[in-house]
């Protein structure tokens, strides 16, 4: 068993790399009931990880740029950092403890799926990232960097896809997505 212990550079050097003024600071959330989106088994803060700590999306969802699937990071990826990082506020610490417990018990958390396409649609993530760049996740997934809890912001319905394809003058051949 090999653990990836290296930390992302941004997480380690973030404070030096970014001037404090432009840094986004994720709020400490006490009342989670008002947040949009489904409640996940672990209150994973995308806004903390990618907004505040500036970890690029591709660090965890590494296959989005090379595969049709973005993949859900393995628990091992979480533990890569959280073996060392225990979190600041107590609420954060509690959630990180859940991660560590899961790792110890070898029981992966069952995330609730938010973005789902019907089985007859193919969405090659890598083609979109290739064309739009690694920052383009927000186009469909919304500003996850500021979401304490991720919710679906786009309809992900066909008309929504097609409008973007038409606007960008790329193919709307049916068999690109449906086969």
């Amino acid at each position, binding site marked *: 068993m090999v653990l990836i212990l290296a930390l992302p550079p941004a997480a380690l050097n973030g404070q030096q790399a970014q001037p404090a003024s432009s840094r986004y600071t994720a709020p400490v959330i006490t009342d989670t009931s008002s947040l949009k989106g489904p409640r996940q088994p672990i209150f994973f803060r995308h806004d903390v990880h990618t907004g505040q700590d500036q970890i690029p999306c591709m660090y965890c969802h590494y296959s989005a740029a090379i595969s049709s699937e973005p*993949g*859900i990071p393995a*628990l091992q990826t979480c533990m890569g950092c959280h073996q060392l990082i225990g979190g600041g506020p107590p609420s954060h610490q509690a959630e990180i403890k859940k991660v560590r417990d899961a790792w110890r018990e070898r029981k992966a958390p069952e995330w609730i799926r938010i973005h*789902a396409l019907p089985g007859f649609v193919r969405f090659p993530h890598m083609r979109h990232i290739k064309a739009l760049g690694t920052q383009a996740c927000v186009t469909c997934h919304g500003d996850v960097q500021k979401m304490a809890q991720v919710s679906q912001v786009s309809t992900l319905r066909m008309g929504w896809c097609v409008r973007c394809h038409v606007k960008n003058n790329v193919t709307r051949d*049916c068999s*690109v997505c449906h086969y």
Partner: protein
Amino acid sequence: MSNSVDRRRFLKVLGVTGAGAAAVSACGIGPEPTERLIPYLIQPEDQIPGTATYYATTCRECAAGCGVRVRVREGRAVKLEGNPDSPINRGRLCARGQAALQGLYNPDRIAHPMVRNARGAFEDIDWDGAIQRLATKVREAQGKGIVFLTGAEQSSFGDLVAEWMKQVGGRHLSYEPFGFEALRAGNRMAFGTVTLPTYDFANAKYILSFGADFLDTWLSPVEFQNGFSRAHAFDAGRPASMSKFVYVAPRLSLTGMNADEWIAARPGTEGMLALALAQVIVTQHLARLPAPPDTSRLSALLAGYAPRAVAATIGIDEAMIVRLAREFASSGGGLAVAGGMATQGPNAAQIVAAVNVLNYAAGVVGTLVKFGADLAVGSTNTFADLATLMADMTAGKVALVFVHGTNPAHSVPGAFPQALSKVAYKVSFASYMDETAAACDLILPDHHPLEQWGDSRPRAGITALQQPIVQPVFDTRPTGDVVLKLSGKPGTFQDYLQARWRTRHTTNFDQYWMESLEKGGIYAEAPTRPVRLAVDVSRISPAPPAPATAADQNQDVIVFPHSILHDGRGANKPWLQELPDPVSKIAWHSWVEVHPDTAAKWGLATGDFLLLKSSFGAQKFPAWITRSVRADVLAVPTGQGHTAYGRYAKDRSANAFELLGAQANDYGGRTFTVRASATKTGDHRKIVSTEGGPRELGLGTTEVLPLARAKALHPGDHPFHYEETPEYAKDAVEWWGERQHEKASLGNYRGEHPRWGLAIDLAKCTGCGACVTACYAENNIATVGEELMQRGREMAWLRLERYWRTDEGGSPHGAVNQPMLCQQCGNAPCEPVCPVYAAYHTPDGLNAQVYNRCVGTRYCSNNCPYKVRFFNWHNYAERDGQYEAFPDPLSMLLNPDVTVREKGVMEKCTFCVQRIRGAQNQARLENRNVRDGDIVTACQQTCPSDAIVFGDLNGRNSRVFELAGNPRGYHVLAGLNTKPAITYLARVVAEASPSRG
């Protein structure tokens, strides 16, 4: 794959990536409900979600030992493809190999170890308890006779078993129902060696088969088919070198169908014919004579076989014998092969010996017949050994028997179960509850070959490796581990295997091991061993013995191995059951082949049951009336008639092995030709046959060119253009077509696009059916079962149409096999009639079918002249539904890149569009264009004959573009102006009269 997860967990992990999870979602193309995403604990290093990984391993479906590459997605094996590194199959695979996946994910696999309780029923037992119990039994049985029965096992596992048996004082027996004993005995008679040589079909200039079905069941079918099609292919570009193929046998098999000439000699006289040919060659000095002692031995042997003397007995005329001999010898590389099941009568060994003599006389032993590169299947135990074992068991000399990887209770029905019942304790390592396992006391289910370590030595020089591709699907254990544990040795079978491999390569082993795993084994060319004629060769006497049976048993019945189900091991795989037999086109059932003259005599129609009764047993088979069998014989395939084995195999038709005796014959083999009485029972069955009705018109569907004509073709010739648009209308149609296309280039369609196309060489296609199964596997095509198939509901996107080539009397010489699939027409008739644009033309020239848009008017299929569209009459993906085609865990082999179709939608071939899009996505990532050869369709990939080529018809440098311009090329039903993207290259047939010499 080091972390172990239980099966339930494993199934859940599959949900990891979600999209494409249509594969496991029951509602098919309906929207899926919110699901849970369960991440890996540790991401497997070599797997990227949504991207396939390929692992090399070895196919264990038969003894040929083809290399395979397994396509793995999210921990599931979804497709098998041939391993191009393997010198045996060169990247190709047969239908049986493709279907290995259905063995892995078979719903009828034994999920736990089981033991027979006091009431005689099986109950689950835990592994430790089972092994403990077994250890006791082994201790008790020591000295009272222990036998370990395996299938063909030239492998480390076989060696381990042999070692252990030695340790406990037992014996190891390997048994193959079709063990090629006649070949071994014939080789001993002619050359004094019992090994099985390798045959070099690729370099043969003339092929003469005496019943050897080397394309379907004989020794190493994929390898031989690949070689055969290279020898037998016609290529206008190179100096025309199509090798003629003559088939001598009482019935046409898949191999026989591909012959240029079929000689239906009287059964049993094939050896006499071979010697007669040798006689002509020797006396007319058609080949260089062998060295002196052989010359005299040859003359002595051949003296009595002058064509004139034997012609009447053989049943063909003298002139033909002389012609064949001349053709064979003058070709400068004639290869004669013998020993197929169709000729495995009591004198089969003599026939093989005679054919060996013919090869020897023609001087190809050592060049085309390579002793030295011996085939492993030749070192299994003979049927005589099994007969001895049965006698021992009956006599109570065996106290404990282990059965692994073989099912003798099915192939030797009656005798074997009876003998087995006399054994005190029976242990089975079967993966399925087959007839033998059902008669055992303890079942310790083995891993499937795709789940475990192993190796095999299919032929001298080659050791193929086998590695676990997926997590075990059920609570099974590798038998190797069990044996090691029982023999008190430490470690697992993996350790044992590696230790053995370490002895081959002591330095830098890890690298060597990784390289071997990547390549799928180590491949070396074994040196050819020279052989000489045996001293007593003159004792060869292949005349058929007079039958000595009861007077009413007046019919010769040939029991031949089913080319798809083989001895019956494929019977529980729905892909194989649903794949029609290449010759009879019958699926899901057995049959008996009856010549129309015989049928007329008995008043039989196709489907009428015939009761065959030999001295050993009686079985009923529905008749298939065909001219592809001699009038004086009946032929029955093996494969069906299981009384256990699983839901797809059980109680299906009749077991042809019942007709055979359990006694070994004088060369130690089993006689597969019996005398039997045949009685019409009066029952009738609508057998599932996909064969077309009597409306065969041959109008622009299949084209056949005589060899001489094909040779005369020059690049730029278009012999088949006569059937395209008539001259007078040509200009108008062309002008109109141009105008239409101009107007059609709008929107999406503007700009440069490829036009995907296929070229299919009918001169190479043998009709083996590998492509059909590959298509089922790649495209999640549902199998519908016998009842629905009887109603014409089969879903085969790609079907093989078999058209007999007949003489004036209607007797076939052979057949032309035409793979028929969606032609992706440029002017597709199916498209404009769809009211909702579900069938439409893509910019890259595909005739796409948008499943989720389809409402199911079925107009497209009505308007398709090729009839290659298939409708989902029921929901074949519905969980536990009445029509479910993928019961758990079969659903795990569904391709996540292909939508599983819902009921009520039309589906069809789209040239594996998922592979096209995958290659385009990859090319885009790498900032390049798709290259010719990047995209390989499933059918092309597996085709053992390399008959199918895919590519871009607009790419001037593509292989398919070149083939589309071949003078032999034609379009099916070109007169309809559909402009298909598939170019067929006409079949070429070497005529009966010699073209030279």
